[in-house]
């Protein structure tokens, strides 16, 4: 009896396994995503039966206000160009996007367009998987309308235009107006003044500023701030040809400045946008981050206090700022029809009208000053957009060399060593410089 029951159970189990397996096989065979077998997605599905050209755009505008803003851009473009279909492939961050992009290009299946950092663009260009944009109609005349900093950011070391601007931003200072007022402190305009104010407001459980230097594989905002300080002290973190100079006197001065703030209880390190979190929790007085963080900072603060925005303080060598946000590159494997369609899309996105619409909806900066008059009402309610956009004229990106992203990781580790583990700033930067040089020599 018992044996029979066991046997029946086993037969039932086997039948169930077989049935599920069959269902699995059937469903898996019949269920392919819209991209067909192409995971990277775009070059194979270049043109469909209706004579439409399909382009694929891998981008990092996947969340919050950015997603609908991006979709609105595409909808406006497709309405104007009914024979072109733009497939968006959004990714939550540049790290994942770049990993996918490298996998897709290695497999010979790149998209038509993708957002990348300039160091990745340099790597792709040297592998000949992306193409220069100089030969497309009106490239030069359109580019000449962009802010100077943006124009410089589009070229690689060979002087050719390989990238096109898209979601660009610079770094600004967010602050708690009530906290500064109650401490009787002004909005700082120099980095020395910033240190004084930061120390003054760091009482009663408040740490003026929280930063995240990031890791070797993903340097974050704290590292960007350090690079800006180096520039403000007179020596950028890299030479124009991409050689690290992390142990320069300007760099040592910048890291000593941060370490002093930490020792005074005015700076803390954390992860995952710690400045934004502390500002929103009223545990921090400042957040130094991208202008594109405005949406998130504003939501974090709510009605607890009035959040102020100001241009970054200046250093001994004057104002300094860094371009943030990726550019767009076009992949050489795309068909001629796709390349033409992709260029149309890029040109459309950088027209003054579209830039005004994009900036208003997303919080990113318009790449051309011609967009500003078209967004006057937005500028009234978001005055920081104007001074931030103007900083695009002189803000600099990291040099466009493939080794920069790796050496930036060495720098992030150096900052962690000094700020997190109490290592002497000069020694930490010396180690970072030595490691960076090893990486550079290895890359060559």
């Amino acid at each position, binding site marked *: 009896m018992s044996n029979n029951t*066991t*046997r029946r159970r*086993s037969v039932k*189990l086997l039948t169930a*396994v077989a049935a*599920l*397996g069959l269902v*699995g096989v059937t*469903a*898996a*065979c019949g*269920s*392919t*995503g*819209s*991209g*067909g*077998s*192409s*995971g*990277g*997605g775009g070059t194979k599905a270049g043109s469909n039966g209706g004579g439409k050209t399909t382009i694929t755009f891998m981008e*990092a505008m*996947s*969340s*919050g206000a*950015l*997603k609908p803003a991006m979709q609105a851009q595409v909808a406006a473009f497709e309405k104007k160009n009914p024979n072109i279909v733009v497939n968006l492939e959004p990714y*939550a*961050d540049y790290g*994942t996007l770049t*990993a*996918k992009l*490298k*996998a*897709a290009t*290695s*497999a*010979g*299946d790149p998209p038509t367009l993708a957002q990348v950092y300039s160091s990745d663009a340099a790597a792709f260009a040297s592998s000949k998987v992306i193409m220069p944009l100089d030969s497309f109609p009106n490239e030069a005349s359109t580019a000449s309308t962009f802010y100077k900093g943006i124009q410089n950011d589009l070229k690689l070391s060979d002087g050719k235009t390989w990238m096109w601007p898209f979601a660009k931003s610079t770094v600004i200072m967010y602050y708690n107006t009530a906290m500064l007022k109650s401490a009787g402190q002004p909005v700082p305009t120099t980095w020395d003044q910033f240190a004084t104010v930061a120390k003054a407001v760091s009482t009663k459980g408040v740490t003026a500023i929280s930063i995240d230097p990031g890791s070797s594989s993903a340097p974050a905002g704290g590292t960007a701030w350090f690079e800006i300080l180096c520039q403000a002290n007179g020596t950028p973190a890299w030479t124009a040809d991409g050689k690290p100079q992390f142990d320069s006197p300007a760099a040592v001065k910048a890291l000593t400045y941060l370490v002093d703030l930490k020792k005074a209880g005015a700076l803390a390190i954390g992860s*995952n*946008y710690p400045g*934004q*979190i502390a500002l*929103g*929790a*009223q545990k921090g007085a400042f957040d130094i*981050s*991208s202008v*594109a*963080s405005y*949406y*998130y*900072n504003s*939501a*974090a*603060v*709510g009605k*607890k206090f009035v959040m102020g925005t100001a241009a970054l303080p200046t250093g001994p060598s004057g104002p300094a700022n860094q371009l943030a*946000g990726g550019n767009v590159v076009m992949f050489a494997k795309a068909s001629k029809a796709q390349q033409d369609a992709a260029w149309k899309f890029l040109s459309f996105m950088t027209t003054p009208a579209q830039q005004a619409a994009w900036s208003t909806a997303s919080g990113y900066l318009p790449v051309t000053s011609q967009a500003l008059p078209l967004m006057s009402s937005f500028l009234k309610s978001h005055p920081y957009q104007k001074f931030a956009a103007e900083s695009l004229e002189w803000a600099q990106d990291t040099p466009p060399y493939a080794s920069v992203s790796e050496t930036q990781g060495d720098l992030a580790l150096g900052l962690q060593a000094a700020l997190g583990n109490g290592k002497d700033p000069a020694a930490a930067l010396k180690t970072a410089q030595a490691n960076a040089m090893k990486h550079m020599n290895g890359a060559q």
Partner: protein
Amino acid sequence: MTGTTLPGSTRRLPGRRATRRPGTSTTGRVVRLVVAALVGLAFIAPLYWVFVTSTLNTSQAYSFSWASLVPHPNFSNYDRAWHMAPWERFFTNTIFIAVCTVVLALLTSLLAGFAFSVMRFRGRGALFGLVLSVMMVPQSVLLIPDYIIAQHLHLLNTYWIQILPFGASVFGIFLVRQFFLNVPKELFEAAELDGCGPLRILFWVGLPMVRPALLVLGLNVLMGSWNAFLWPYVMTSSNAVRPIEVGLSVFSSTNGTDYTGLCASVSFTTIPVLVVFLLLQKQFITGAFSAAGGVRG
């Protein structure tokens, strides 16, 4: 009855001093309860915080005050989060992928575990070592080569790419093999004498003996499949085949994270896994103990 002790009886044997089991005193019980409560709290606190955050508005969520530790009667984040992604599709995909992966993993582990423990063939040890060596290679290193292979096999952006690579589990093979090694060989020999072939021996004699291992393995594979992120994120590009975890990335961006929306969606996507665990927790724990200590004979 005198002089006999029934199994489980608490009667003292004559001539033996009364000994108290450690931890049975009042203090011991209190200590055990406190430790258990603290451990329980440590596990439930993150879930509670996620749920509470899902009922706050963003500004409240960033307050970190006592008030933000109490749930609010505000479920607007759930409504917002539900409309931000095709969750029905993600749920269906995730369940389908998880079930198929579990079934495949159980089947392959059972077959391979049986072969590596009960069956005798030349090179068995070397082959088993080769299988185990797969565990030494981190998956992230293989991501790009795997992508290229998947591209050549036309598996990208399909359910297959999320099922097949995990349909054979090295851990599972190892676990099932260890269980089979503890099963008395005489059982298999008797079945063989009765005329059973290897498959019949496996399914009719072996399978009931390793059920705890299969349960542990099934739950592990289910959790792994349910929580998979990087692999499906890289290997797929369409929501039509993507699982829940990838869907959750819609709340993260390069400039910040929508924590309230994320917590709301984490709350409603975690419920199915919790239900499965609660339903099977007895078997899961029994299985885990058996897996750790071998089969009791």
